[in-house]
């Protein structure tokens, strides 16, 4: 638990809205944002007046590459929600830019806010009254009460198991260090294996593997980005409607920014799918050309899953083949529409191009095959490419941040070993790494180490 450090979080609802707001609050808020904000005027936030709106770009702390075009509101305390210095970054909506800007603030030195933490600060600093604060208590309590969907529950269970595994492996190293420190005589009898480095690298590699699942995890939490593509008039809109009607899902009408192509949300077996629209306006233009440039390409690139529709009643065209070519390497489900009409394309022809990707016959008219498509979509997540149902995934930013920090701590341990520094210096960062993992599953180290010492080693007078 930390107080008065600088915190940051997305303050707009996830996945909606044309604008996303990242709020940074705390004594270093201005300094932190200044590190990643290039103002058009060339000034620093520290130099401009309070309660002003400033135009510029958020850039990557390391590479300096532009992340997004933003408006930044500077509000110096105490005339702010938390009474601390607050900087709000207004960026383009849509999960990707919002999250990237958030990550940039974290890299620049902010800590991810806990649930309700802004409100908590507002209360602690005397900004809001008790009834409002009690609502925060409810939020904090709610964290443990939320009944997660089965799929999520399983995911979290797997994650805990994995993290516990890493903790245990770290504990093996820590216990050896501690025993050699607290029981110097032990060494005399049974030399302790001091080759910590290999082991730590091994653990670190595993943690990095887990970190790489962060996108899969995010997919589960925030929705599988699914693009429906195909040449004009092949039935994209009809398929979209068929999927939605079947599920009585809510079609949200999201005012699109250029990046915001989400058309609708769909829930299959508890897994949210975000259907990205490549239909509509682009019907009137040459689709292949559009795929080559511009927005649909972005949609496809960002898509976790692509549903490629073909018309089974007419021959494969050059357009079809070019689209297929452009989505190579993606997770694809091929859908042969118009199965109610006499078939012209055979399974064999498609398989020649589809490879091992699933192929489903449907009719958007008769709704035949829609169930099978849904099953295929959900199995893509459950056991298909991503192995999420058996493996562990990192599914939220807080976990991701903790894991990144744990990995950084292990990097420091390795650096300490390379520098030839003694074990007690290694221990500092090893304990930190263990602690960061503990932030994911809520376990602390102290007693664990001590009981580990006495279970594993024969100690004492």
């Amino acid at each position, binding site marked *: *638990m*930390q*107080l*008065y450090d600088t915190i940051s979080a997305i303050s707009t609802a996830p996945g909606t809205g044309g604008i996303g707001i990242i709020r940074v609050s705390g004594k270093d808020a201005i300094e932190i944002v200044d590190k990643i904000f290039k103002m058009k005027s060339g000034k620093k936030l520290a130099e401009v007046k309070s309660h002003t709106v400033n135009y510029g770009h958020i850039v990557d702390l390391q590479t300096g590459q532009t992340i997004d075009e933003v408006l930044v509101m500077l509000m110096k305390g105490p005339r702010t929600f938390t009474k601390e210095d607050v900087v709000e970054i207004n960026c383009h909506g849509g999960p990707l830019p919002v999250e990237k800007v958030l990550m940039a603030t974290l890299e620049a030195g902010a800590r991810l806010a806990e649930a*309700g933490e802004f409100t*908590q600060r507002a*209360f*602690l600093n*005397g900004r809001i009254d*008790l009834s409002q*604060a*009690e609502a*925060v*208590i409810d939020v*904090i*309590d709610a*964290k*443990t009460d939320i009944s997660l969907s089965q799929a999520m529950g399983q995911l979290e269970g797997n994650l805990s198991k994995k993290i516990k595994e890493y903790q245990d492996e770290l504990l093996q190293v820590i216990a050896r260090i*501690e025993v*050699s*420190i*607290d*029981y*110097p*005589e032990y060494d*005399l*009898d049974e030399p302790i294996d001091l080759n910590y480095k290999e082991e730590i690298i091994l653990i670190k590699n595993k943690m990095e593997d887990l970190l790489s699942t962060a996108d899969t995890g995010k997919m589960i939490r925030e929705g599988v980005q699914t693009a429906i593509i195909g040449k004009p008039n092949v039935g994209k809109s009809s398929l979209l409607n068929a999927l939605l009607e079947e599920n009585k899902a809510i079609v949200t009408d999201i005012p699109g920014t250029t990046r915001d192509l989400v058309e609708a949300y769909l829930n299959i077996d508890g897994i949210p799918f975000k259907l990205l629209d490549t239909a509509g306006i682009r019907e009137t233009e040459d689709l292949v050309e559009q795929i080559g440039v511009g927005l649909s390409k972005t949609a496809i690139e960002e898509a976790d899953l692509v549903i490629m529709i073909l018309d089974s009643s007419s021959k494969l065209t050059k357009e079809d083949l070019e689209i297929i070519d452009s989505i190579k390497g993606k997770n694809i489900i091929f859908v042969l529409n118009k199965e109610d009409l006499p078939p012209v394309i055979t399974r064999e022809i498609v398989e020649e191009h589809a490879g091992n990707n699933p192929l489903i016959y449907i009719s958007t008219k008769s709704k035949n095959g829609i169930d099978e498509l849904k099953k295929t979509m959900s199995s893509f997540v459950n056991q298909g490419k991503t192995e999420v149902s058996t493996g562990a995934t990192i599914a939220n930013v807080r976990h991701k941040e903790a894991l990144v920090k744990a990995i950084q701590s292990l990097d420091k341990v390795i650096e*300490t070993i390379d*520098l*030839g*520094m*003694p*074990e*007690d*210096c290694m*221990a*500092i960062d090893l*304990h930190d790494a263990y602690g960061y993992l503990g932030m994911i599953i*809520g376990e602390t180290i*102290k007693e664990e*180490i*001590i*009981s580990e*010492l*006495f279970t594993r080693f*024969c*100690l*004492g*007078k």
Partner: protein
Amino acid sequence: MTYIAESVDVVVIGGGHAGCEAALAAARLGKNTIMFTMNLDSIAMMPCNPNIGGTSKGHLVREIDALGGEMGKNIDKTFIQSKMLNTAKGPAVHSLRAQADKHEYVKEMKRVLENTPNLQIKQAEIVDINIENDQIKSVITSLGAIYPCKAAILSAGTYLNSRCLTGQHVEYSGPDGLKSSQKLTKALEDKGIEIVRFKTGTPCRVSKNSIDLSKMEPQPGDDTLVPFSFENTEVDIRREQELCYLAYTNQATHDLIRDNLHLSPMYSGEIEGVGARYCPSIEDKIVRFADKDRHQIFLEPEGLDTTEMYVQGLSSSLPEDVQIKMLKTIPGMENVEVMRTGYAIEYDCVNPTQLRPSLEFKNIKGFYSAGQTNGSSGYEEAAAQGLITGINAALYIDGKKPLIIDRSEGYIGVLIDDLVIKGTNEPYRMMTSRAEYRLLLRQDNADLRLTPKGYEVGLIGEERYNRFIEKRELIDKELKRLKNTYISNSNQVQEILKESKSTELRSGASLFELLKRPEISYEALEPVDNERPKLTKEVVEQVMIELKYEGYIKRQHQQVEQFKKLENKKLPQDIDYKEIKGLRIEAIQKLDEIKPVSIGQASRISGVSPADISVLLMYLEQWGQRKADLVKDNE
């Protein structure tokens, strides 16, 4: 029949390591003090191992010394072997350990007590205490003498209702055949104090004359000695040293123990007290680590004027004949003569969560508790608590705030905080792994951490304090000088670097930067460091540690900063936790029992979650506002 004896400021019940430090501290702070012991010959007695210090315990002794306590000085006077442990590891875990001449240690400590102004020592058993209005009033001896007092310190060690077990034989005695205290427990319970029962043990002592030491590995002390006390130099403590010896158990030893396990009171269920994981009997070791084919045994001399040797590693409560047979399986001990038989001891102690961080009972003003009576183990842990209670009893009488060392300031802080906040379900042993800020809490800088506090309290005199200030200034000055002194990449410098197996310089560098390289020593740069002042070994040591471990030390300081923020969020002692909306039941119970003084402490109580802490923080804010409003209303 009772009678009123003399009135005193401070009464100390018990004359072990805790009692001695408590009595000396109180008397030295000007309080009229009396220390009771059941036997004047067992003052500062070491009923178990004949050494002081060791990992983390050595740190405690140096901290005791930095605050103005006696243990460090007394062992410096009476040690017969000294060793700095862990020198191959980092400075944070270097630990000093000395073998004591037990009898000299006792004699010397008694002499110091006898010659301390304001202090009386008296052989008597305290059987009851009087409390009025939640305040200690007096103590009563078995002979009926009532000693009215302003404060009292309970440091009864392992004597309360103690009984010793060897095999099936039970002796209702204290350690080493001394009388146990059979009445005080009940008196304490009657006053509402919660008592728990612990267990520990000690191995046998054997005659050096009956052992063939040539069959064992000699373990000598260090050539260069480091004193425990910051008041001593190496020259002050130089002397001839004795040897310890290393031997091993073997298959025959293990077979014998296994065959006789049913005779151990531990395994037959006779013993109910909770034993310590870190102090297993040899029976325990063999059962729990069945695959180990041998265990270490150290033979340590108990003094210069005795042939008794302590057999470290063979703590046992097996019947005497089995113990003897067991010893005889060890090469060199075939003809061993056992002089004292090992035993397990069960005793009553106070559940330490009843105490404040000052070690005062929460419900009894002016009544303190220290040492093994608080569930700790070890001479050093006891002495540390004793010193703190002696100081706090004196401060209490003067109406001053207690001295509380926090976890970032010393092992003493970690020890007391762990005891009073978390409690313990086995005798608590200090370990370096219990300290979060280990790199800051080194044995070499105990004076830098604590001597200003000792001075402020009044246990450190002007002269010593001035010397300390001078040392501190020299360290700062030298660090600054090294930062500001640049040397060129001259041939002489490159030559030195080559000799130290370091990379050569491309351009000039500060001495500080060069010394940061692990392979470059302070001595190595001497030829090119023209303005180097003459400094003591201790100053150079501090400078080099600060410099070489700068990055790590800085990180620990940042952690401490975070820690302090929560420690400084004080919780009022009259909070009714039941009234706080949002706390979980388990948290309410725990908070109510422990009554933490700060948010930081609350967060260390097991059963109090981060969510509970958030709720407390909010409550605290509200409480502060309400108080401010009240003040406003009154104006």
